[in-house]
């Protein structure tokens, strides 16, 4: 328990460093005021608006007041939405979670059987196909895959909706798009860790004792192969969110990824800050979760 509390406390300096980096980058990247005004706005109009919304303060004053507000849970008001940035981000999180969970489920459903299968049938045609497919799956950019899936399943076959969020059908194509790369990585990981474990002495012992091969694979080998798998799955959170930026844009999925892209394009600093901080917190928490699950799966590992 002490370990968890300590890890939770470690989040604070990490978030503070992230906030500084992001604030600095956004500050350097450009002035949002010119983007907020029409293309033919005069310099006088730009200056007047900058003054009105307090953007002509020096960097350290702006950053100082920002940190002071963030500590109180106030990320500031979004220029674009005219509303509290954190609430805008909260509104989007369920959509991204829905997509991410669906993508992970698809990835696991594909990776576990194919990973085990190709490990147990090493160098067979099935293994070759599975590892080949994993390479292709990892190499395909989400953007391209998404558009191809839309063209095939929606435009040509007409069996699935093109975009948007709503019914279960709307979830299928974006989840496959986002899940494919992760499935590929997971398949390769399960295959390699299964191969390593299948060559261990205790597996040979189990086999020699006459235990059924299915039982050997699933009870003795797979459970141990799960340890690196769980770690990688938890670490996929950042990959998932990175992939969600593209997938959500292609499928018009109203999640945090699309919000972040729009915010960067419009220099909506409050939203960018809030998004990055929330994403950072999620990634850190997922890593912590991975450590805890690690402990549950292998009691020999001590968290301290």
């Amino acid at each position: 328990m002490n370990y968890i509390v300590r890890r939770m406390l470690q989040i604070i300096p990490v978030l503070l460093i992230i906030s500084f980096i992001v604030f600095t980058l956004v500050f350097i990247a450009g002035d949002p005021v010119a983007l907020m005004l029409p293309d033919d706005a005069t310099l006088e109009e730009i200056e007047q608006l900058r003054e009105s919304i307090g953007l002509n303060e020096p960097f350290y004053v702006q950053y100082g007041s920002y940190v002071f507000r963030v500590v109180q849970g106030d990320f500031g008001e979004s220029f674009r939405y005219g509303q509290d940035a954190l609430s805008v981000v909260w509104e989007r999180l369920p959509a991204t979670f829905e997509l991410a969970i669906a993508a992970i489920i698809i990835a696991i459903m594909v990776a576990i059987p194919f990973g085990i299968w190709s490990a147990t049938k090493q160098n067979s045609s099935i293994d070759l196909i599975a590892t080949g497919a994993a390479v292709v799956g990892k190499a395909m950019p989400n953007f391209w895959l998404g558009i191809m899936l839309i063209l095939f399943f929606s435009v040509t076959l007409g069996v699935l909706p093109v975009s948007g969020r709503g019914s279960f059908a709307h979830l299928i194509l974006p989840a496959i798009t986002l899940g494919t790369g992760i499935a590929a990585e997971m398949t390769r990981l399960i295959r390699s860790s299964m191969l390593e474990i299948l060559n261990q002495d205790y597996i040979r012992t189990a086999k020699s004792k006459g235990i059924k091969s299915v039982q050997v694979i699933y009870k003795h080998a797979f459970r141990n192969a799960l340890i690196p798998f769980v770690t990688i799955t938890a670490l996929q959170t950042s990959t998932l969110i990175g992939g969600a930026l593209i997938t959500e844009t292609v499928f018009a999925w109203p999640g945090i990824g699309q919000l972040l892209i729009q915010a960067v394009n419009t220099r909506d600093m409050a939203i960018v800050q809030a998004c990055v901080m929330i994403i950072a917190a999620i990634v850190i928490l997922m890593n912590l979760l991975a450590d805890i699950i690690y402990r549950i799966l292998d009691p020999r590992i001590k968290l301290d």
Partner: protein
Amino acid sequence: MKRKQLWFICMLFVAIGLLVGCTGENKDETGETEEVNEDNRTLTIALGTDMVSFDVHNHNNTSTEAIHINMFNYLVKRNNDTGEMEPDLAESYENIDDLTWEFKLKDGVTFHNGDALTSADVKYSLERAATDTTLLDHANYRQIKEVEIIDDTTFRIHTHEPDPALLNRISRIGSSILPANYIEENGFDHFLANPIGTGPFEFVEWVRDDRIVLTAFEDYFNGKNEEWDEIVYRIIPENSTRVSELLTAGVDMAVNIPPSDWVRVNENEGTYLAQGISNRTLMIFLRSTEGYPTEDKRVREALDLAIDNQAIVDNILGGAGTPSITRVGPGDVGHAANLYDTYNYDPERAKELLAEAGFKDGFEMTLHSPRGRYLQDAEIAEMVAGMLAAIGVTMHIEFMEWSNYLELRNAGENKDAYLLGLGNSMFDAANALDYYRYDRFIGQLDYQNDEVEELLVAAEQNMDVEERNEQYIKIQKLLAEDVAHLVLHQESINIGVVDRIDYTPTMDEMIYIESITRK
């Protein structure tokens, strides 16, 4: 084991089959991809970007206004066919003196919550736009001094200076009339979450970056819209996804169809491309700063003569665009018709002019250009560079991310030229030609023409409509002679539409639901 593999593959196919089967049913329930229902009274419009806000006074986003105009009204509105100003919420208006306009509101206008529209609502709305300096469109309303209430339906607008463009001003972004009582009682945040206006459609929901839903307002003062029960705006940023939605009838209309998909949309069974001319003009702004080659009028003229505007329109824009020599388009007050739908092209003369100006062997220049902001902007910049190369001018193009591009210009660090497309929501030459004022762009463009300056000042406050028109036409003639900047063409509006509905785009880029009908 082979049997097990076979069994696994069979189960995989069964699972896929079930999944597709399930989605097939779902598809019919949601109506997403089912056969087009001619009687469907829900109109779905795919937009490229989400609405900015329901704060109608605090944005300058055309596509946001294209939604707002169906929920809110202005006092007057511009007739897109005739270009004339017509009463909307106002029943009548009169110019009492140079600084005063008197308006009478229509009877029986109510907000979506049932409150009657009164002069107090107008006072609240216009004075907010005129006095709150943090509002993004404040610069276009600071000319209004105050709104004086005469009675419940009569009021006067007082301006600081004579403002001949007042009617244009109050028929555009930033001048919608809001419910003063509702906002005072509930607060502005409540209004933003539950907006009400006087327009033909009322608010149902806004799921950010996903959809905005409106429903027909029963008590609309011009009568309930009989054509559509519900309007759904869907936000689909990716072009190819938006086009796919249109092709599969997932949406009824899709905005900003890219030129690469025009043929596809037209040839697809069940969709067509509705095209119209927008009020946005693509231009190349030149530096007249001392020391730059473009300081010399002969050089500017040579560049203009080297560009074949029609070839750009035909080859890059598929014929959708109109070459022009002026930024003031048809439909704008003060439009010089003889400078529109025409262009100057004479590369031989261009070479002579360059030689006269001392650039016999040409020169090198730099053009800053955004990429993807305007229709085929990058391709156009490249084609212009090719045309200039034919007269010996080497134009280097620096494609820039939009915010960096703006910063560069605002800091006056731009080099010889920049490409920019400018709209004109005021539909008035004053707005378009203000770009030629010397003091607006000192250190950035430095173009100065004293006669133009004098005429701009005189026309800005001239309440004699005829004389003012003549002044603006003369300014455009002077600018064309002086080749202040290079005007390329007016852009087109390209909206994909399903066959079941009739739609013609309007120059103001608004999508008036009342003008969309089922066939």
